[in-house]
């Protein structure tokens, strides 16, 4: 080593390299637990069932033919979702252009402050 003698410098260098690589492996293991935590939080916060449920209800509502009934249902969904689910839901149904495979184009917007979901469905 320093000034004692200059032998075995390769061995010392290899020792450094090995210890540094062990150090980095340690960091990798350390980070893996953090990854697990953020993933678990993401899964818990994602309102999968709410979105699926809203979506199926909106698609079902699009079949209503009476305009007044449709407006009522639209207001029902918006106000109940806001009061019970803390989510802002709005949707609209327009007729698909003539010659299209689908009959309706449905816009769905969902936002609960954490998750936003927007969809344009051809139905």
């Amino acid at each position, binding site marked *: 080593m320093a*000034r004692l003698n200059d032998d075995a410098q390769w061995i010392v260098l290899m020792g450094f390299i090995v*210890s540094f690589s062990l150090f980095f492996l*340690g960091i990798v293991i350390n980070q893996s637990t953090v990854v697990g935590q953020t993933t*678990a*939080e993401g899964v818990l916060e994602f309102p999968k069932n709410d979105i699926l449920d809203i979506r199926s209800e909106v698609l079902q509502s699009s079949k*209503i033919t009476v305009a007044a009934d449709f407006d*009522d249902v639209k207001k*029902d969904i918006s106000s*109940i979702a806001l009061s*019970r689910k803390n989510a802002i839901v709005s949707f609209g149904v327009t007729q698909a252009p003539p010659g299209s495979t689908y009959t309706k184009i449905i816009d769905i917007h969902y936002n609960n402050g954490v998750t936003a979901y927007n969809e344009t469905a051809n139905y």
Partner: protein
Amino acid sequence: MVNSEGQLFTIEGIAAGLIMLLTAFIVVSTTSIYTPGDTHISDMQLEQLGSDALRMMNTPNTSADSAESALQSIIKNNDTDRFRETFLWFCNNKTGGAYDILQFSTDVYYRKTLTTSVNRFHFTESRKPTGGEHAVRVTEWVQVDNTILAGGSMPAEVDNRVQAVLVEVLLWRD
């Protein structure tokens, strides 16, 4: 300093000290594995089970536009007995052995046009909740034709019109 010898030793010593400190820090912080999902996994399973049961009840038998799901006609006719039977049957059924011991309590939320407020009426339950249950909340949107013409017989305070209501179920394992 007395003299300037051994400088490289000093630098090595500092580097080694830093590496040891960092290693100790990483080891200590690694052992405290914290997953917030741990305690909620059984809740999530119960929630999924309840959601699936309600989804099954709210699926019509045919894809015809006029087809009504079981849940739709239950809410429309205020058929609490049928809801209790079907829901408990779906939730407590197992592939073998004894039935599960899930209990529930159901409320229905609706909007009143006159007051534009969201109100609720109690629908049915399998057992009165004492407040000590560890319950999860599952919900299902149901579209009900509560017009007199369609024979809607929801409780009197609910508007007689086509509407979307939210069925909320508190579900717990006894």
